[in-house]
Each structure stands twice: as structure tokens, then as C-alpha cells.
């Protein structure tokens, strides 16, 4: 149980929690000042829980039921601009309805933290996970991190505030989790005490840019061709600094909470000596780890990498980790229509990382689990088997697709 501490108690209690519950606990513990809600499956559980905290007197914050996601995210952005710690969240098309606010929250450099309960983009309607929603902010100046357990959701939300609000960073952060598989599945988590959280997470201070009568600033005037490039560059410099801050934050997190996050950016599972490395994000890691264990038992040299931080992308670290292998299998719970080689988003990020590597492994893409379809242990074992035997030009495979696609590089896998 709890108590690996010296003076103050680090953990309050254990409880059964879903992924969204984990985030709700973190929002409460972070003493968030303002949160705005709007319903859409599957992220909503976090707002249900926070509303109940307010009703029970367990959490002191301004709670606004917005009139739409656009307003919801603008409320978060402007609360953050007056120096209040803000939380928002959404899923799928709701996240896209807020897109204008998402873009400006990033360019205004306001450290709002948002939960994205990943959901397929309508139409036709599908509640299940697909990573395309969160990925749409990948070029906008958001920090984006994927979590795969409820504990990791709690921890990462606290870390998200710590990184986002760092005076050298000041960028919004999206905590993404697989809809259904994590938003709605429960396991036992350890809930930290408020005292330990306040040791880890300092007060939010926007500094010179805060909107307050004592600090009469003008925020976001027209810059046009005069200053746009310099401001874009400043934002990018902040993203660069974010990387170091992420390393620091995880180190501090480990020391305060006794956690064991070795590499903040990705977890490696049995990658030592692996000839084939499978890489994916989110809850696919459960099936992938078991698949790797089984294949290892049979003597196959296989490993798995669970990518956590998608922005900033751990370019150097991944290049080092992946170029040791002969083959890399990318599991994409997303799709990039009309992109290079008709592969997924993660696939092309990984290929781009490996372009400059001395040892270039064969990279094969697997479009899998779209719209919440299960990616089973057997599926991952099949992914490894195809990666080993497929020809160099068979780059993209759709896992468990019902119909055979003729032509191109799409090859059907048996379910």
C-alpha cells in the first residue's frame, strides 16, 4: 500500500478508478481553479466526477457547463489568461468543434490542460477509440501525451500541469487516452495526498502576461508579416525547452511519489536484443506486452515500445532505440488519408525519425483498432509475423479488415 515516505504521507488511499477518474483525482489534487464541461462520449466521465466532487464539497473550483466545445475551450483559455489554473476536455468531433480555441490556446501560450478521450471522428457515428482527434493538434503547439492506465492518467495529469506551466515552457498540454478501453475500464490506483502534490506542483504563475488591472498588457494584437515568424519561432523554442522540463518533471515526480518512470517519453518492454520492435500508443500496450512475452517464450527476439509523449516527439531517443532492431512494426490507431505510402500518422513519424539512422530497420505499418475495434494479443502476434515475412514494398497492412483490398500495398490479415 501507501507509505514509502519519510515525513509526510505520500498516498492517501487506494481506490478503484477508471482512466477518467484518475484524471479527475489529479485535477482535484492540482487545485484547479476553473473547469468547463460539455458532454460528449467517452471523455465525459471526468466532468461527471469533478461535478460530484464540487457537490460533495471535496473540491473548490469554478465549474461552468458551457454551451459548446468552442466556448468550453475558450473559457479554459481565458481563465488561464487571468492566472487561474484551468481544465477542459473533449472527444472526437467535440475536440474538433473546439479547434479554433485549441489553435489559439497554443499560440497564446496558455498552459491549459485538456483530456482527450480518443474517439473516432463521425460520420458515421462511432464511440470507440481512434487517435486522429488528438493528433489534429500535433502541428499547433500543444504538448500531447498518451496514457494507458488509470494510474498513469492521474500521474501524467499532474506532470502535465508541471510541464505546461513551467515558466520556460507555458504551452497547453493534451492528455490523451483511449476511449472505452481506458476512459471506462477500472483498476486500483493510489491517490496521492494534497500535501505531496503541492510539493511537486508549484502555484501557476503566468508572470508578465497575466490579465490583471495591475498588469495592463495587450495580448495577441495583429502582428501580420512583421512579427509572425519570430513568434512562431519563440513557440518552437518553448517546445524544445519542454523536452528538458519533461525529463526534470518525471525525475521530481519519481522522487516525491516513489514512482518508477525511467524514460518519460516511452516505455521499453523486452527490447534488449530484439530484432523486431513493435511500437504503439495507448492501451494497445497491454495486448502487445503479452504478445511479446509469448513470442519471447518461443524464443523469438521481439520487443515493444509504448510511446507516451507524442509532442514533443522524442526524435533522438527513438532513433537510438529503434535503429538497434532489424524490423519495426508500427501500430497506428489512426489513419492519414492520402499521406506518404498511405500509412498512418505514427508510421510516418517513425519512418522520418529513422531516415537519418545509420542502421535503417524495415518499417511496416499496421492500421488497427479503428473506431474502437479490439486489437487482440493474437493480432499483435500476427503483426510480428507479417513484419518478419512481408516484402519490402508491402508497407501498410490493415489488421482484421473484413474485405480484401485489391492492388496497392494493402494486405488482408486473418482474424
Amino acid at each position, binding site marked *: 500500500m501507501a507509505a514509502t515516505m519519510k515525513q509526510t504521507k505520500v498516498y492517501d488511499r487506494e481506490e478503484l478508478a477508471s482512466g477518467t477518474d484518475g484524471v479527475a483525482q489529479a485535477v482535484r489534487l492540482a487545485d484547479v481553479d476553473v473547469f468547463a464541461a460539455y458532454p460528449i462520449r467517452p471523455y465525459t466521465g471526468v466532468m461527471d466526477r469533478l461535478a460530484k466532487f464540487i457537490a460533495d464539497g471535496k473540491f473548490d473550483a469554478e465549474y461552468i457547463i458551457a454551451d459548446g466545445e*468552442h466556448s468550453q475551450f*475558450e473559457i479554459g*483559455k*481565458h481563465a488561464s489568461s487571468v492566472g487561474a489554473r484551468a481544465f477542459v476536455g473533449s472527444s472526437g468531433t467535440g475536440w474538433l468543434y473546439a479547434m479554433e*480555441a485549441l489553435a489559439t490556446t497554443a499560440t497564446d501560450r496558455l498552459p491549459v490542460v485538456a483530456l482527450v478521450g480518443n474517439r473516432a471522428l463521425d460520420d458515421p457515428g462511432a464511440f470507440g477509440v481512434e487517435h486522429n482527434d488528438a493528433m489534429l493538434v500535433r502541428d499547433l503547439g500543444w504538448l500531447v501525451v498518451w496514457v494507458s492506465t488509470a494510474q498513469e492518467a492521474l500521474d501524467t495529469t499532474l506532470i502535465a500541469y508541471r510541464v505546461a506551466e513551467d515558466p520556460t515552457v507555458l504551452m497547453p498540454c493534451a492528455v490523451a487516452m483511449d476511449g472505452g478501453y481506458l476512459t471506462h475500464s477500472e483498476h486500483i490506483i493510489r491517490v496521492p495526498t494534497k500535501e505531496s502534490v503541492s510539493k511537486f506542483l508549484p502555484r501557476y504563475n503566468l508572470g508578465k502576461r497575466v490579465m490583471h*488591472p495591475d498588469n495592463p498588457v*495587450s495580448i*495577441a*494584437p495583429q502582428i501580420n508579416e512583421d512579427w509572425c515568424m519570430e513568434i512562431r519561432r519563440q513557440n518552437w523554442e518553448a517546445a524544445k525547452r519542454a523536452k528538458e522540463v519533461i525529463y526534470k518533471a518525471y525525475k521530481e515526480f519519481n522522487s516525491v511519489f516513489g514512482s518508477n518512470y525511467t524514460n518519460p517519453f516511452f516505455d521499453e518492454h523486452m527490447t534488449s536484443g530484439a530484432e523486431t520492435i513493435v511500437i504503439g500508443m495507448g492501451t494497445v500496450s497491454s495486448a502487445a506486452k503479452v504478445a511479446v512475452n509469448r513470442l519471447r517464450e518461443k524464443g523469438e527476439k521481439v520487443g515493444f515500445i509504448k510511446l507516451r509523449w507524442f509532442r514533443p516527439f522524442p526524435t533522438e531517443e527513438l532513433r537510438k532505440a529503434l535503429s538497434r532492431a532489424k524490423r519495426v512494426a508500427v501500430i497506428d490507431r489512426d489513419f492519414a488519408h492520402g499521406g506518404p505510402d498511405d500509412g498512418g500518422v505514427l508510421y510516418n513519424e517513425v519512418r522520418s525519425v529513422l531516415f537519418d539512422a545509420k542502421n535503417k530497420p524495415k518499417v511496416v505499418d499496421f492500421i488497427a483498432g479503428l473506431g474502437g475495434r479490439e486489437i487482440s494479443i493474437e493480432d499483435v502476434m500476427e503483426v510480428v509475423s507479417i513484419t518478419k515475412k512481408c516484402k519490402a514494398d508491402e508497407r501498410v497492412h490493415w489488421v482484421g479488415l473484413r474485405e480484401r483490398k485489391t492492388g496497392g500495398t494493402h494486405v488482408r490479415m486473418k482474424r
Partner: protein
Amino acid sequence: MVSTQQAKKEFESAKLYTSVHNIDLEEFYSSGHRTCQGCESALVMRDFVKASGPRTVVTGATGCMYVANTSYMTTPWVVPWMHTQLGAGGASAIGMAAGLRALMRKGKIKNEKINVINFSGDLGGGDMGLGGISGALQTDYDLLVIIYDNESAANTDIQATNLTPYGAQTTFSPTGPAKRIMHTKWKKNVAPMMAVGHPNCKYVATACATWPPMDYMNKVKKALDIGGPTLIHTLDPCPKGWDYHPRYSGELGQLAIKSGLFPLYEIIKGEVRYTYDARKQKRVPVREYLEKQGRFTHFIDEDYELFQTKVDEMWNDWEIPGVAPVKGILKLAQ
């Protein structure tokens, strides 16, 4: 429902300007903007912040009062000002008001009255941001939304909005041999719509920056003093968009009011008071107002007559002229 007396008391409690001589000289919207000569929307800016004073935070939705006002490093704003998105006026006010309330309650900043004001144009406030402003008026926060209405998207080269008057020429509604009148919509009646539908909203007013003198500034003062979510809708003559010489801005504002086309009133806790009662005055023919503007030069007699009929109908037939069209647009089924 609040009693008449209570409403009256609150109405009278604001320290109002009684003469132009007791209007503060200090400016909080100063030089640095690039608005046109004769721009009434710029006056709307200057006067609201004069009335609200330095303990104020402001967001401005995208529009001419963003683009023409705030060029990087030459801001006219002496109070904190931030840009917000075209349709985010209401939400921006909620965000700031909620943030300040939480920070004050938790003792993170000094507890004091800080005025939270958003201004949005007719495109941003009356069209795209209407839902967000509705959301803001449903809260219990102290915030004021000002819809500054120059009857077009004046920043993007004068395009028609749903608050552009019937028949007006804009770049989206030109006149031509096949279609003399392109813009066939009657002006959306935003202020009463918001007043009727939002039980939390404590104060709604219409105003014109220049006329009657001090009326607009006093309405800002009242809105801020009464507190809660409040809304002011201003009509701002625009030389560029309405096509007239800048020297006539003040005159056109007056004519819009005196012709009865733009009713001036305030609604405090459900009670409507006219601040210029066109029922008791002899109304100037609407034609006098329309003829002075280039955007109506394609009008023929029947267009002027239509305008006059609509205005007469509003003042003679509506249950509450300008506000509640029960006998005008809406009628009880027999």
C-alpha cells in the same frame, strides 16, 4: 420576480454622469489605433472603458475593433486587453470572470471588484458568437458584453451580416440589374432576444455612442453597477461601410434614433424603459436617415415605404415597441 421598487433602487444606485463636465478626463483607450475618421465603434471603445475605469479587464472578439485597433506594439489599450476569437466573446468573459472569482475566493489574488468586459461586433456577437453570449448571460458572473454594431463585417471589406439592414449594399450584397435588392433580411433584433431568453441577465440596453450625450456611458455604468451578466447593444454609424462623409457620424446616429428605426431602451430585471421614447416624440421620416447613406442609393420609393411601414408597425403595433413584437411579428392564434 423582483419588485418595481427594488429594480428602481438598483437602477438609481449607479453613480451616473449628470453633465459632460463630470466625465473623467483620463483615457484608457488612447492613441495607437488605426480606426477611420468618424468611426463610432472607436467611440464605443473609448467611452465604455472611460466609464468602467482602470480596474477593468477587456477581451475583444475578432472584428474591425480588433484589426484596426491593435497593431503590435502600438496598442491603444491602457487597461489589460486580450484578443478573443470571433465567436468567443461570451466565453472569454466567462473565463476571465470565473478565473478572477476563483482566485479571489481562494485568496490567490486580492479580493476587489474587477470589471470584466467583452466587446464583439455584429458579425461576432450577433451571428457567430450568439450562442456563446447566450451561455455567458446564463451564468451568475459579473460580466458585460457589448455588441458594437456597425451593421457589416467592417474589417473584411464590408460584408453583410444578419444585423445589416434590409436592402443595404455591401460587398456580399451588391445591387445589379437582375437583383436590385440582394440583402432581403430584416435586421436581427438581438438585444430583446437576449433579454427575453435569459432569466439570469440583469441588464440589457441599446445605445448609441454619441447621442443622447452621456446616455451610453451611463448605461455602461449601470450595467457594471448592477452586476451579473449584462448586455449592451450599440448602433455605430460607419463612414466606410455606410458610405457617407465622416463628419455625419453623429448626425446619422441621431437620425437612426429619432426616426424610431433604432429604439433606445434599457431592460432592468424585466422592466423596459425607453431612454428616447419615440412614441412621445414626432418621429423623423426614415427616408431622411436612409438617403444620407451611399449604401441605400439604389433605393426607390417602394423601398423607403417598406422601411417606413416596418418602423410604424413596430411603434404602433408591437406589445412593447422595439422589444416584444407580440402584435407585430408574433400574434396569438385565434
